[in-house]
């Protein structure tokens, strides 16, 4: 990259209109503009409000269970035979994934703004569960939009959401996956904009969402930075995280952006292989466009119609990506790579058998790439994998792939 990212430059992004370089922004219909501008203004005030921050920190500690451990994967390191592999254990968060860091933040925001009706979109169901959970915790009405295809793939999480008191709306339009769930969530939001707070689960969507989701998830990277210094006496050499919309990755990367020595790797879903076109890797194989309120890398056809995606993991099955990742790609600060469904399954099995930690299929993409990467590095170097979620929700998918009936 041409110039060093200073703290000052980073704190100026996104700019006043929500842009990260050429990406981001606020591309929505007029009805939502006032709500987004109000949210931005209120969030900027609350961000510096000691009462709000103290409440957020307390929820992260006592409800989410933070800090999560930074764990040395000793056997995996030995088997891989390269750099030390460390795991940031977001799978140990309440509800089993990093998603709750953001949902508790946004639900508190909703409460401070006096909004009682919460909506959310979900792919794998982790964000839906995390939203339903904090709504139960704070006594808020909760509606979750989920593609009908994902409702099938993730029936366990659908049941969890219902137990938590949420209403789950199966979305039958389009490709019946995450992007269509997001379309319907936005349609609901436009219809009930005065009383509704939309808890977006990833760092995409219109400004200020990519910024506020990043801020709430940055606790991952801040803890990792401190823990790495404590446990290894230095910053990690590489960070690896899976990227669908990219919330766990940005949460891990953001506090390290100005640390030039730390290499950042975002791992997209290569599906059946980039060359087959059946994947969900817009940063690796897409081009910039506008969807869901922001300009970012997208998977689309030559006419600008959004392309169908494929991934074994529902949480990565999305044709777009957070705009800050698009910017980090274009300035060369982060590397974006992909692994296939098969490689991810291999990563899933490996971590399960060697460390006794069953990762989510999303996370398994990061595991698979990190193992390849660590093997090329020296023994005194360190790689941190963000273990964004646990794999219990995926056992049905894994069983099916192995031809086993549960």
């Amino acid at each position, binding site marked *: 990259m041409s110039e060093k990212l200073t703290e000052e430059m980073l704190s100026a992004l996104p700019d006043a209109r929500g842009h990260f370089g050429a990406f981001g922004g606020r591309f929505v*219909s007029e*009805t939502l503009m006032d709500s987004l501008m109000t949210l931005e203004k209120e969030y900027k005030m609350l961000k510096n409000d000691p009462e709000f921050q103290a409440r957020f920190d307390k929820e992260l500690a006592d409800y989410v269970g933070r800090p999560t451990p930074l764990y040395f994967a000793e056997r995996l390191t030995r088997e891989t035979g390269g750099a030390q592999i460390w795991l940031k254990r977001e799978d140990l968060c309440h509800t089993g994934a990093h998603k709750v860091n953001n949902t508790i933040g946004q639900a508190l925001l909703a409460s401070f703004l006096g909004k009682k009706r919460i909506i959310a979109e979900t792919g794998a169901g982790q964000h839906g569960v995390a939203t339903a959970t904090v709504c139960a915790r704070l006594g808020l009405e909760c509606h979750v939009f989920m593609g009908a295809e994902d409702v099938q793939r993730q029936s366990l999480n659908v049941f969890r959401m219902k137990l938590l008191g949420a209403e789950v709306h199966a979305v039958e339009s389009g490709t019946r996956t995450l992007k269509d769930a997001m379309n319907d969530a936005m*349609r609901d939001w436009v219809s009930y904009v005065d009383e509704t707070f939309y808890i977006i689960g990833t760092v995409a969507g219109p400004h200020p969402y990519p910024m506020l989701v990043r801020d709430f998830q940055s606790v991952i990277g801040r803890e990792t930075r401190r823990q790495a210094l404590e446990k290894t006496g230095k910053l990690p050499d590489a960070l690896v995280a899976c990227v669908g919309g990219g919330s766990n990755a940005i949460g891990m990367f953001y506090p390290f952006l100005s640390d030039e020595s730390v290499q950042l790797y975002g791992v997209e879903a290569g599906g059946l292989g980039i060359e087959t076109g059946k994947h969900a890797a817009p940063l690796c194989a897409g081009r910039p466009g*506008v969807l869901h309120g922001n300009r970012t890398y997208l998977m689309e056809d030559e006419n600008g*119609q959004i392309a169908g995606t494929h991934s074994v993991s529902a949480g990565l099955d999305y044709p777009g990506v957070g705009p800050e990742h698009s910017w980090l790609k274009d300035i060369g600060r982060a590397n974006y790579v992909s692994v296939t469904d098969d490689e991810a399954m291999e990563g899933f099995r490996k971590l399960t058998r060697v460390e006794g930690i069953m990762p989510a299929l999303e996370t398994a993409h990061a595991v698979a790439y990190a193992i390849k990467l660590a093997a090329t590095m020296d023994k005194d170097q360190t790689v941190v994998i963000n273990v964004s979620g646990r794999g219990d929700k995926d056992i049905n998918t894994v069983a099916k792939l192995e031809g086993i009936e549960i």
Partner: protein
Amino acid sequence: MSRIERTLEALKGQGRKALIPYITAGDPHPDATVGLMHTLVAAGADIIELGVPFSDPMADGPVIQLACERALKHGTSLRQVIAMVKEFRTKDSETPIVLMGYLNPMEAMGYEAFADAAVDAGVDGVLTVDLPPEEADDVAPLFTERNLDAIFLLSPTTTDDRIRAISEHSSGYVYYVSFNGVTGASKINVDEVASRVDHIHKLTALPVAVGFGIRDAHTAAAVGRVSDGVIVGSVLVDTIARNQADNDQLKRALTDLLHPMREALDGLSS
């Protein structure tokens, strides 16, 4: 003066209100669209809003979503939609055409290439649902230079400052969305619309057309009474869906729907 401005000015001079039907290009089939446009004009349309199909129409309800899916099944692209307008113009040089859709197909084609092709084909205005004026810095000048009217939305949630700012960026007319919701819903409250449009008229000199929730002659007249024009979309698109098997029957059904609206609107001035 643009074709849209001329049309609206002439109507105003006659004390009449604009009837602006919307259909999705390529629905039910790309070959049918130009014929349907002529049918709309014959039934009393003053301006046509021609929808550009998009895979993810976030501001639309199920009726227009399905129309987009039907059009995309036949591969209807933005370039093809522009070609339809060109063909329409060989028989109709009077009726203004506004392309209505989402930003990404335009971005994929390239803004300059789009603007050139649109003007060449005889398109008069462009309404991009997910492009607020704040994000239109790159696009708007390309339209202005070519005399393409940029039409923006106003909604019940738009503040006075924004109404003024959006009007500054607009030409032709502004499109007032009658309620918070998606196309095809039936939440319209005519009294609320009347007071909002009255208020918007105080903040801008542009004509105000009202869309969302206009389903029949009765709602058309009620909204026409308080605005400069009415936009009719989902009820037409639903008619297309229900009569897609028989093109002649479809044309009759569209005429039967639109013609009473025309009469009801014209009845306001007599």
